[in-house]
């Protein structure tokens, strides 16, 4: 690791169970993680996996049954100063007053998060400009489009310049264009040094945005790692060789004797990597179009770690 370590969030062994209708639900059963400045971490999990509960415990909103949270070394459940460093946009709840304008919302919530009136006004102007909402400064939140509302929500979450931003399902319910804008924003914020933790059940969002992914299932972390490493770890050992035209019958037989298979012009070698050269030799000197290692995408990783039994049978 050459990146300078600047730990913004540290959560250790978080547990939370809820009682509802006399039943006990383990919402989160031991989640630990750290997040550094400039990093985007995606919490990936299906409905009920415990993502929102984790975010609420990290933001000081819900008290964990066990475990600790530190934001820049401070416990948000004990020390109100920690809250000045956290921005939260929760799913399903709002951080906007429908009847207040964009400007009024930003100014009000700025003060609520500990800014002075003047600081809040300045931040409101800056954020409206940055989120391209300046021409909507005097529009009531209820009259903005869904995408603009979401942008304003994120702006409100950022009004006090927190070092940690927690986003719960930030692209849910947005049209493609608005979702794209939100993604761009998240990338920018991270590049400016903000630590971002976002939850999503949309795998493509996680794959596009996150440096690291944490897959949550039944309140536990079932897989965690740098996005690329995780994809590589769960990728098959398989290689696909694309030929310009289908191999002759004789070549097919020698390929099959090596353990490779072919369909039309596409030859598949199930691995390992060293054996690939034997296959290429058997193909020489046919013109190749490409040689590629099969890559998993997060959907496959997700399915493998959350329900191995439901995985489709190996292709090829």
């Amino acid at each position, binding site marked *: 690791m050459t990146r300078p370590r600047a730990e913004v969030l540290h959560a250790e062994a978080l547990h*939370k169970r*809820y*009682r*509802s209708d006399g039943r006990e639900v383990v*919402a989160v059963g031991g989640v630990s993680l750290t997040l550094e400045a400039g990093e985007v971490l995606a919490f990936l999990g299906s409905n009920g996996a415990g993502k929102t*509960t984790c975010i*609420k415990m990290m*933001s*000081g*909103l*819900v*008290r964990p049954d066990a475990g600790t949270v530190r934001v820049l070394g401070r416990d948000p459940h004990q020390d*109100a*100063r920690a*809250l*000045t460093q*956290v921005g*939260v946009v*929760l799913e*399903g*709840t*709002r*951080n*906007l*007053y*429908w*009847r*207040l*304008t964009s400007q*009024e919302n930003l*100014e*009000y*919530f700025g*003060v*609520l*998060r*500990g*800014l*002075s*009136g003047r600081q*809040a006004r300045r931040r409101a102007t800056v954020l409206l400009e940055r989120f391209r909402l300046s021409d909507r400064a005097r529009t*009531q939140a209820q009259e903005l489009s869904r995408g603009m509302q979401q942008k304003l929500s994120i702006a409100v979450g950022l009004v006090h310049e927190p070092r940690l931003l927690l986003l719960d399902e930030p692209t849910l319910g947005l049209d493609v264009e608005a979702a794209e804008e939100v993604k761009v924003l998240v990338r920018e914020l991270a590049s400016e040094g903000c630590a971002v933790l976002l939850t999503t059940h949309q795998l493509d969002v996680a794959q596009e945005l996150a440096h690291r992914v944490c897959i949550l299932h039944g309140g536990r972390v079932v897989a965690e790692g740098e996005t690329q490493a995780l994809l590589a770890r769960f990728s098959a050992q398989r290689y696909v060789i694309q030929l310009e035209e289908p191999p002759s019958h004789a070549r097919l037989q020698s390929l099959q004797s090596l353990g490779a298979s072919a369909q039309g012009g596409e030859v598949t070698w199930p691995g390992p990597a060293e054996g690939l050269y034997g296959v290429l030799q058997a193909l020489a000197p046919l013109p190749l179009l490409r040689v590629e290692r099969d890559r998993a995408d997060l959907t496959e990783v997700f399915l493998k770690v959350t329900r191995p039994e439901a995985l489709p049978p190996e292709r090829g």
Partner: protein
Amino acid sequence: MHGLFLAELRRSWALFRRYPGEVVTMLVSLVLVFLMLFWGVRYVAGPGSGALGDRLDGLIVGYFLWSVATLGLNGVGWAVQGEAAMGTLEQLFLSPFGPARVFLTRVAADLVVQLGVLLTVLGSILLITGRTLALSPGVVPVMVTVVLAAWGLGFALGGLALRLKRIPSLLQLSQYGLLFLVTTPWEDWGDTGRWVGAVAPLAPGAALLRGMMARGEPLELADFVIATLNGLAWLGLGLFLFHLAERHVRRGGGLAGY
């Protein structure tokens, strides 16, 4: 804290003037209320005011007392309920000030807006009709003690609203309790009555106002101290109960309407 108060004031004001139709309706009905008070129509002043004597200044003080006490009593409860319904409640829990201080400044700001409107309307009518009121300045601090106790009860109701999410009928019923507290003449009922009258929320302040307005008694320091202690004690108790409710919802995660 000061900044938060200004922000709440701005928020109250922005919401107030956002709906000119509602503002006009409210101003017109206020003007009507005051005009009827001027003509001596007692019942419009709210059920509490008759006890403050039947002179104009008694009726008007009674009306003010009734307005600020009901707003104080219901303000936090309605706010919690409204924020829960809009989905913004959690944001107040994310503030470093914490929800109790936010709601306290909010009811204070709402009170300022409400008083501003009431006094403007009243002042204009006095100017136009050329009448004057003979009010002792002691009325104001006594009114403050009543407001403090009303806020205390309001926070207790607010705590209940936090846990139950919707308590509209309780909030409406609470006005009858308020009526009982403000109008019962404990001071006429011997020693026991005097004790109860000192301890019951809002009671000592209301009794003082009755003495001053209906019987023209001067404000005794000892009575005022009792009323102040009463107001502070009930406010403290209400904030404590609210705090317990806050802890409960943070534990049970019951903030988002589960």
